[in-house]
């Protein structure tokens, strides 16, 4: 008998005949018939060992050959077959492991610009240490999920491009995104999991802690992080700042006017401001002044009136200045601070525009001004994605209290591409709206995700503390091609895909639901997710997760229509009618599934640009290059009219708006303007107002920003480039360019 056997990797281990016996037993059990008794197993194993010795075989593959031979010789042909299959499957996995190691080699040695795999996520710098470490994890995880976790049909559907399981590498780990209520979080302070923070007391701290909250939550989820009520939350910081500034200016005035020493002035201020019915705020200057005078005797009043006036003016000035700086720091932080092992900035969004308080308005005004001014040397910032809430009676019409902010938002967007605009008056959004309650205002997460309806808990159709759990996208053009122009066949195939996606979403939900509070020390441990504050550290999160959404998405409606009718919905009314029918069908199926399961199944107009390229590449392999369908690099985003199709803005909005009402898990429409929108705000406003009128839920106006080919600056360039200072036709010295390269990552070299 051989004492050692040689494994595939070349190393030797002690021979153990029980391993052979177990393998045969497993194969036999898998067959379910042709049962081999315990004695039979021993007999077969002994026969294998005898032959190995007789032939002096010691290699693993040779041993397996002998096992097959013996099984067949003794008439256990079915068991032999199972054994062969088992062998083949493991060979496949081993090959895949080699494949994984090849990927690791590429990640390690090749520069990002040469390897697609290192550029998969545009936000991650694949050349840095932490970026590479993150990619090792991601690729290893995908391998594990594909080979050991996913149900076979879902794995196959994803691999062949029928569907796309988004963020598959996070399948076993976490959820997509969350709308964070900072007001709740800040109350009594919070812990990030690494350190405890007190309740903030100034606008600077409010803004800094907002960044920290986004960052901490980003490290626990795979999608974006959003603040749905930014103006309301930051207003509290402005309020505290103003009060302190008022008191300080009040004391300062007394100190100078009455020639008191500083401590005495502070003490007197305290006494004078005591016992008043309310605190001084940014918005109540006059009323507070009157209350102050009413509280004191005739002789004090002239001095108090002057002091109050001075304190109010000084406090307003100081608060405005500090708020601007806090908002500037907020933007700078979100474009520079690290998350995910230092390889990425958080994917952040903020929604605002409906707080009509003086404090909330000051926040929004200064955030917009800081955004308009740009980063560093006037660079256009990428984060946070900003969304201005448009609401008649609040911000939409010239007589509305926040109309001025809406105007400023458009002015800012015309220069910086953000903010985008959300429309709370669209009927599907308006149904949730309760005046003065930010939790009833629909918010959008930057990429377009929308979470508000709640079939699991109809009393809690709210924005805060909720988000998407996961989403999976259907490749519509492929269905169009498979249906070969037959609409009925298309819907049959579509139903099969929808069934597959629902099964897979539920499978993932089971995995997610098996997690405990301690897996999410911030998201669940700090009570950010709805109802998680009632859970204990070791509790399962399955029940509270039901507030989140399970979402099916779609891509390439235009190409699917083209495959079915030879025209897309921008080209003919029949196609538009069928397009609506398809998306209505998807929505109806999601609604039915939601009723059946009590879970928030919903429909999203899938955003992923990278994915639309993957689908088209796979379909090109399968069906060849087909005009209007696979003859492009990307399938058209969700329900959009193809970007390359020339169409007037009003038509595009009219055609796309009805799909917004159907896609309850998120949507966006873009309008492309050809020219510098900052010089024509009237045109900009016309388009935003038309979106509002047509029932668009979330819209964005894009316009080409200028790009200086010499220094890479992107933004509005008039006669002189703000980054390198050159005028058209002038050059920049090599030395100056190298210097700029260190400051700006996008200087072309």
């Amino acid at each position, binding site marked *: 008998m051989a004492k050692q056997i040689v494994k595939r990797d070349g190393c030797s281990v002690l021979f153990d005949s029980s391993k052979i016996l177990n393998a045969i037993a497993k194969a036999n059990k898998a067959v379910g018939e042709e049962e081999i008794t315990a004695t039979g197993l021993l007999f077969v194993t002994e026969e294998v060992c005898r032959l190995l010795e007789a032939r002096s075989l010691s290699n693993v593959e040779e041993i397996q050959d002998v096992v097959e031979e013996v099984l067949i010789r003794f008439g256990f042909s079915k068991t032999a077959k199972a054994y062969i299959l088992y062998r083949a499957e493991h060979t496949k996995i081993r090959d895949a492991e080699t494949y994984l190691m090849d990927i690791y080699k590429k990640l390690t040695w090749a520069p990002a610009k040469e390897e697609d795999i290192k550029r998969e996520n545009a936000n991650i710098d694949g050349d840095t240490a932490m970026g590479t470490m993150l990619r090792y994890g991601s690729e290893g995880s995908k391998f594990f999920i594909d080979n050991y976790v996913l149900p076979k049909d879902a794995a196959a559907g994803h691999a062949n491009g029928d569907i796309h399981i988004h963020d598959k590498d996070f399948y076993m780990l976490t959820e997509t995104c969350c709308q964070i209520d900072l007001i709740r979080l800040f109350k009594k302070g919070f812990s990030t999991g690494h350190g405890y923070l007190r309740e903030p007391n100034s606008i600077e701290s409010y803004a800094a802690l907002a960044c920290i909250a986004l960052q901490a939550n980003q490290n626990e989820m795979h999608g974006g992080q959003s603040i749905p009520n930014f103006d309301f939350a930051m207003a509290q910081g402005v309020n505290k700042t103003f009060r302190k500034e008022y008191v300080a200016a009040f004391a300062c005035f007394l100190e100078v006017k009455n020639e008191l020493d500083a401590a005495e002035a502070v003490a007197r201020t305290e006494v004078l401001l005591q016992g008043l019915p309310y605190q001084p705020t940014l918005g109540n200057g006059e009323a507070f002044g009157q209350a102050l005078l009413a509280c004191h005797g005739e002789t004090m009043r002239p001095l108090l009136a002057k002091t109050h006036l001075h304190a109010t003016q000084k406090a307003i000035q100081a608060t405005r200045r500090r708020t601007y700086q806090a908002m500037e720091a907020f933007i700078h932080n979100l474009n520079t601070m690290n998350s995910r092992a230092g390889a990425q900035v958080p994917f952040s969004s903020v929604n605002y525009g409906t707080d009509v308080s003086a404090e909330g308005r000051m926040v929004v005004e200064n955030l917009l001004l800081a955004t308009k001014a740009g980063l560093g040397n006037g660079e256009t910032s990428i984060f946070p994605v900003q969304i201005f809430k448009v609401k008649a009676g609040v911000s939409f019409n010239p007589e509305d209290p926040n109309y001025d902010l809406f105007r400023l938002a458009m002015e800012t967007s015309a220069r910086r591409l953000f903010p985008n605009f959300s429309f709370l008056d669209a009927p599907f959004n308006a149904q949730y709206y309760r005046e003065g309650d930010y939790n009833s205002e629909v918010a959008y997460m930057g990429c377009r995700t929308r979470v508000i309806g709640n079939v699991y808990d109809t009393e809690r159709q709210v924005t805060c503390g909720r988000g998407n759990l996961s989403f999976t996208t259907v490749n519509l053009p492929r269905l169009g091609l498979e249906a070969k122009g037959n609409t009925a066949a298309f819907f049959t195939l579509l139903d099969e895909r929808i069934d597959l996606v629902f099964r897979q979403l539920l499978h993932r939900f089971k995995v997610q639901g098996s997690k405990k509070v301690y897996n999410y020390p911030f998201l669940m441990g700090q009570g950010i997710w709805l109802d998680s504050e009632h859970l204990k550290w070791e509790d399962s999160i399955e029940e509270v997760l039901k507030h989140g959404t399970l979402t099916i998405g779609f891509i390439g409606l235009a190409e699917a229509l083209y495959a079915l009718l030879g025209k897309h919905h921008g080209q003919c009314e029949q196609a538009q009618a069928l397009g609506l029918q398809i998306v209505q069908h998807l929505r109806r199926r999601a609604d039915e599934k939601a009723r059946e399961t009590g879970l928030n199944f919903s429909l999203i107009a899938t955003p992923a640009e990278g994915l639309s390229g993957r689908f088209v590449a796979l379909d090109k392999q399968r069906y060849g290059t087909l005009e209007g369908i696979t003859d492009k690099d990307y399938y058209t985003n969700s329900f959009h009219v193809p970007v390359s199709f020339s169409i*007037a803005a*009003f038509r595009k909005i009219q055609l796309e708006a009805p799909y917004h009402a159907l896609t309850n898990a998120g949507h966006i429409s873009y309008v492309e303007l*050809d020219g510098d929108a900052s010089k*024509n705000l009237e*045109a900009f406003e*016309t388009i935003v107002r038309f979106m509002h009128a047509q029932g668009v839920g979330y819209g964005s106006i894009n316009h080409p920003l200028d790009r200086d080919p010499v220094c890479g600056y992107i933004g509005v360039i008039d*006669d002189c480039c703000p980054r390198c200072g050159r005028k058209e036709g002038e050059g920049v010295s090599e030395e100056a360019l190298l210097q700029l390269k260190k400051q700006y990552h996008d200087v072309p070299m």
Partner: protein
Amino acid sequence: MQRNASLPCVHSLRVHGVVEESIVDGPGLRFVVFTQGCLHGCPGCHNPATHSFGEGYETTPQALLTQFATNPLLAGVTFSGGEPFLQPEPLAFLAKQVHALGKTVVVYTGYTLEALYPLAQERPAVASLLEQTDLLIDGPYVAALRELDSGLKGSSNQRILDNEAIGSLWNVLQLRQGNVPNG
């Protein structure tokens, strides 16, 4: 300028093309008609293909108006070129119809208003078109004076005149002409 009550319907004009929605040819979203044919020959012109008189195609004010009227977002029409004042009859007619829809008219010309004055003496429609113009950007493009900051002008010698300014300058020109004996 005072607008005359009636204008004759003119059946055709030669255009280089139209842009259905432009944000760079006047306030708001605008329907731009690029007329065909121009004599100025400004060096560095950004539309040299519109200079010859043979190219482009014939269309009618009615056809342009129909196309214009389908788009609810439009603030108005812009005549650019080419030189619009070489075809003032159909354009004045179209401009009047646009006004009837409550929309505005912007006109680009390579002539200065002063240079248009003598033309108007021979061709009354020049004055009619000016009457129908809410915003006139006048004067030739001078490459050496290129200026992009303002948004509407191509070079700093050009002026942006609203209807009132056109009217008062026109009055000055008339007075000046009246002062010259036997004109």
